């Protein structure tokens, strides 16, 4: 029986504690952030005096009041904590207020006088390209000679693809509670995916040493990458106010403020050129990726790197040439979001395949199949990593059969012949997703495991529970290691004083890295306990002594496998070990083996392994309204030996549905001045219960263990997101039926009903011409 989510009972009873639920004894102040109303402007003056006089207001701070560094960039130091001389996007923090009530904060805010000199902003990728506002150097990646190969290719296509921004819409908005301790200590309760970085940045803005700052995270109400770096901002603001007032300060962003102030998934403008033979086999692909980095660097280059490394998706491209640029615009700095640049790259490659099929009048699934990475040949990526243990053909065979793809495609075609205003479309898309941080040193994790004398175990690890079931997986890993019932294992809140210097819980690697660290800690304890118990048995049973190599931890007991009568209950053994002065706690550490690559050359092995999946989605589109329904989705996904099947299914379904949002209804609009127009749930539409497939069939690929990972499992957080591209291309397939698949429809992400209707309109006007 797989374990239930370790917080499930607390979730359903409302007992689960999030930042806003933490009880503060007394003196709590509310923090508020005053942000820039201009996309780009010089700050001429800033008068805070009147605001400071409001009753109940305890601090009003500007950049000059920051005791340490006014800097929060995670990689490049280009992101001030509070704007000082200029503002570079609407929503950029300029002033902080702490007051006894929210209302007093708002009153004070109205009295703050900041005078700005507005400057011309850059608000879209095209303008940024025209003005060449790069956030950093352009990067390239090449294999073979794409230019030459393109010349000799029988067919060449060129095109552009725009992919939209996406708001994380974690249910818990950015939140932090800071409680000053004695002397300069600061306790930080933050909704962050990266507590060690939050700790570092709080120390830097306050000019403290890191051993004075503790960050603790019980759980976060959703992250999806949106709290990998953005959580730091709220934490630093709350810390500054707590430091200035000497009182606990909580900041919980209102939804609209959160949406206005924080970064999103990068918009991309992608230009592609692909050469292929008469069968549809790729001979050369050239890609130009332009991403909207926003006003600061954040993780944009790591994200672009993953884009470059996923431009192939699941296909062998003998000649590949990639140019990648991150552009600076006057919008909030964009950052991590589930998929981390992968979705945009894969959308581009799948668009190419889809177009090839339309041009050659072939089934796109056949074109995909013929271009898959091979098992023994055609199996090296454009950056030199061999695709090992490739399950693509197995996945293909099984999903094509289980989804009844061929028959349903025929049925959809027949339906389209008899329906003028409603069309059906179907598409199969694969995903191959590299698992590991591409910045190699980040692939490390730590854990601290304690066993108590009643036989219970407390696990600390460096990962963050954000709903993905990480703690549940850690609980079962520890229980299996110690051979005890999972109910005897508790996973603690993540705390930087227990497990230091951790990497973010990101890159889908949370369970891979922390699971191994927990296991290693447990093994260290078991080593000592085995030795102690062997001694104990040897004393109790004179004659043949027990040896530690034969001591086993099974069913809540510790026993000598060679002498089954020599056995002791786990808890009793712990008491005995304590009497023998044997340490019952240990830290564990793990670093991913055998990875590394040359970033400059773009060659090597950035990934420990790949996760794979495939989806078949069928949709019905109302051409007059642009509304679509997903008739059926089949997913077959590879998670190795699952650590917890229902939890992994939840990641796959949830990832797919979040991907659906990106591909269909989640549209972000800014006005001509850079104001976010879609800053609330009434204008920004994440999928609801009736947007999911009417028939949703998700299966795990069984009996394909993943070597060299925790319990032969595979990461699952991000890869399924990209399977939603099957829905996107199914919609395109339906639209394309308007002209009997003879014309390439205008298409982009998201395919909103507006885009669909306009695309159909264009196709219809062609018909009439």
């Amino acid at each position, binding site marked *: 029986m797989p374990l*239930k*989510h370790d*917080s*499930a*009972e607390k*979730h*359903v*009873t*409302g*007992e*689960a504690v999030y930042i806003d639920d933490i009880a503060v004894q007394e003196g709590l102040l509310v923090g508020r952030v005053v942000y820039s109303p201009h996309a780009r402007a010089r700050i001429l003056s800033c008068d805070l005096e009147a605001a400071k006089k409001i009753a109940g207001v305890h601090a009003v701070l500007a950049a000059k009041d920051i005791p340490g560094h006014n800097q929060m960039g995670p990689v490049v130091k280009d992101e001030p904590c509070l704007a000082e001389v200029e503002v570079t996007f609407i929503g950029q923090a300029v002033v902080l207020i702490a007051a006894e009530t929210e*209302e007093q904060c*708002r009153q004070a805010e109205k009295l703050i006088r900041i005078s700005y000199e507005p400057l011309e902003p850059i608000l879209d990728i095209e303008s940024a390209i025209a003005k060449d506002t790069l956030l950093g150097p352009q990067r390239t990646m090449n294999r073979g000679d794409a230019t030459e190969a393109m010349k000799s290719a029988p067919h060449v296509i060129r095109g552009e693809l725009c992919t939209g921004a996406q708001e994380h*819409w*974690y*249910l*818990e908005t950015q939140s932090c509670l800071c409680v000053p301790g004695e002397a300069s200590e600061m306790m930080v309760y933050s909704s962050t995916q990266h507590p060690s970085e939050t700790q570092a940045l709080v120390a830097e803005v306050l000019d403290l040493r890191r051993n004075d700052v503790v960050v603790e995270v019980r*759980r976060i*109400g*959703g992250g999806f990458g949106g709290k990998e770096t953005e959580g730091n901002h709220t934490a630093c603001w709350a810390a500054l106010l707590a430091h200035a007032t000497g009182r606990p300060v909580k900041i919980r962003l209102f939804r*609209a403020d959160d949406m206005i102030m924080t970064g999103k998934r990068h918009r991309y403008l992608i230009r592609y050129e692909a050469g292929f033979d008469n069968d549809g086999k790729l001979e050369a692909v050239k890609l130009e990726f332009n991403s909207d980095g926003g006003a600061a660097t954040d993780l944009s280059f790591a994200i672009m790197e993953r884009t470059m490394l996923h431009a192939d998706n699941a296909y062998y491209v003998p000649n590949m040439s990639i140019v990648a640029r991150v552009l600076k615009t006057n919008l909030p700095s964009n950052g991590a979001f589930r998929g981390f640049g992968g979705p945009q790259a894969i959308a581009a490659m799948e668009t190419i395949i889809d177009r090839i099929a339309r041009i050659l009048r072939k089934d796109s699934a056949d074109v995909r199949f013929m271009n898959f990475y091979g098992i023994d040949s055609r199996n090296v990526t454009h950056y030199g990593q061999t695709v090992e243990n490739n399950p693509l053909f197995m996945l293909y065979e099984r999903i094509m059969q289980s989804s009844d793809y061929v028959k349903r495609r025929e049925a959809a075609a027949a339906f389209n012949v008899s329906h003028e*205003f409603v069309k059906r479309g179907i598409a199969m898309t694969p995903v191959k997703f590299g698992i590991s941080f591409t910045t190699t040193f980040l692939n490390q994790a730590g854990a601290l495991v304690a066993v108590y004398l009643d036989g219970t175990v407390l696990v600390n690890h460096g990962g963050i529970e*954000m*709903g*993905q*079931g990480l703690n549940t997986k850690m609980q079962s890993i520890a229980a299996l290691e110690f051979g005890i019932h999972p109910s005897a294992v508790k996973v603690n809140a993540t705390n930087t004083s227990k497990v230091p210097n951790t990497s973010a819980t990101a890159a889908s690697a949370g369970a891979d890295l922390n699971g191994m660290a927990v296991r290693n800690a447990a093994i260290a304890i078991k080593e000592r306990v085995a030795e102690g118990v062997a001694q104990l048995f040897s004393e109790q049973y004179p004659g043949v002594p027990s040896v530690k190599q034969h001591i086993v931890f099974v069913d809540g007991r510790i026993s000598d496998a060679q002498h089954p009568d020599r056995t002791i209950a786990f808890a009793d053994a712990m008491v005995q070990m304590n009497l023998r002065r044997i340490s019952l706690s240990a830290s564990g550490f793990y670093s991913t083996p055998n990875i590394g690559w040359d970033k400059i050359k773009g060659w090597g092995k950035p990934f420990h392994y790949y996760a794979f999946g495939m989806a078949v989605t069928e949709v019905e589109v109302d051409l*007059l*309204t*642009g*509304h679509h329904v997903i008739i059926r989705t089949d997913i077959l996904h590879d998670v190795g030996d699952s650590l917890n099947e*229902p939890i992994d*299914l*939840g990641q796959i*379904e*949830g990832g*797919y*549905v*979040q991907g659906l949002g990106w591909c269909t*209804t989640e549209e972000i*609009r800014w006005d001509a001045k850079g104001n976010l*127009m*879609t800053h*609330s749930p*009434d204008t920004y*539409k*994440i*999928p*609801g*219960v*009736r*947007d*999911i497939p009417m028939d*949703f069939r*998700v299966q795990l690929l069984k009996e394909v263990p993943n070597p060299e990972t925790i319990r032969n499992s595979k990461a699952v957080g991000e890869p399924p997101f990209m399977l939603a591209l099957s829905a996107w291309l199914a919609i395109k397939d339906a639209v394309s039926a308007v002209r009997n698949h003879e014309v390439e429809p205008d298409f982009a992400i998201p395919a*909103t*009903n*507006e885009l669909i*209707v*306009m695309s159909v*309109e264009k196709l219809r006007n062609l018909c009439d011409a």
Partner: protein
Amino acid sequence: MRYTAVDSCLVFLPMVHGKQIITVENLMDADGSLHPVQQALVDTYGSQCGFCTPGIVMTLFALYKSGHTPTRTEIDDALVGNLCRCTGYRPIVDAGLALAVHTDRKDKFSRTEEETIVLLRQIKHESIRYESCNQLYHRPATLHEALVLRRNSLDALVVSGGTDVALRVTKKHELLPEILDLSAIPELKEVVSSSESIVLGAGLSLNDVRPAVRISFAALAEMLDVFGSKQIRNLGTLGGNLGSASPIGDSLPVLMAYGAIVRVMNCDGTRDIPITEFITGYRTTACRPDELITSVILPRPSASVIVRSFKISKRQDLDISTVSAGFAVQLDKKNCVETCILAFGGMAAQTKRAVSVEKFLAGKNWTRDVVEQAASIVKNDFSPITDARAGADFRLIAARNLILKFWISTQQG
């Protein structure tokens, strides 16, 4: 005993007077065992990050207390108002389906229901007036009291369900100095059905309107099916939707198509105003400062009239229309248009009829060619705007398409 799920952020405190409030913290039994809906969500892995879970628990709880086994459609209908960013909803729907095993619907509330009813009955149904240093809140218990209050406090903001006004407090952080709350007036919640018409009390919740109009005014019922969410419809009222006169006003175009009449009342008497005259501009109506909307009269259409409603929105549920429409057409024996009403929301500063299209169609043969020609001139009737929801171009094409879609629907019986 009736249990309804509502969005707490849309409820002013005085509105809950006389009611039992049940929150997620209440559901567990005294012995610590989970309520069946809680257990179902645990069993199906229906929570991931858990932040949306309390709302989902309460939605399913209300469904559980509805007294019958919910179908998938009813489960979806109930959950439309709950957003979850983690699960993809499938396990949550499964939790809803799993409730079918509890055929007796017993829980800790059913065991004490009789006592609860006794306690609730002890709370007198009476007018309430709350006053603080900067706010005045009236909650009259009779229509007469309400009309007197309306006359004496012309500046008071009239609130019926509160779903629109509450956002001014929770989102815009406004202080509303004086509120006249009509949610406790039984006279405003009546349905009077006759052979000529159906009269819907202005205070009926949109959810209560749905079954009342399902058979005779199906196009209105269908519009209400995709109006907000169940939690919003449990609060929001028809009168409120009319009174706020939103330019989109999901229900307004279809009410126009039915030729609805808005009845308003003051201390001196009543006036009946055709809905097209009632809506006078961007969020303005013909309702005078001393008047209240008391009911909406829907004349029963003759059998030869075909009425349909359409809604185009980015997301089909829990979304404000990009374009909404209510259409009616009456055809004579020669398939010619006798009368037609083509009302749109989202196309102008107020909900409005496509007058030139209607004029074009009058007397013409109701054929695809004619309708397509007619639809193409809809651009003469409107100059929509580009906003957060969609572009002006799309709105015009969508409006045109909806007219064609209407014609298609008339060909399918």
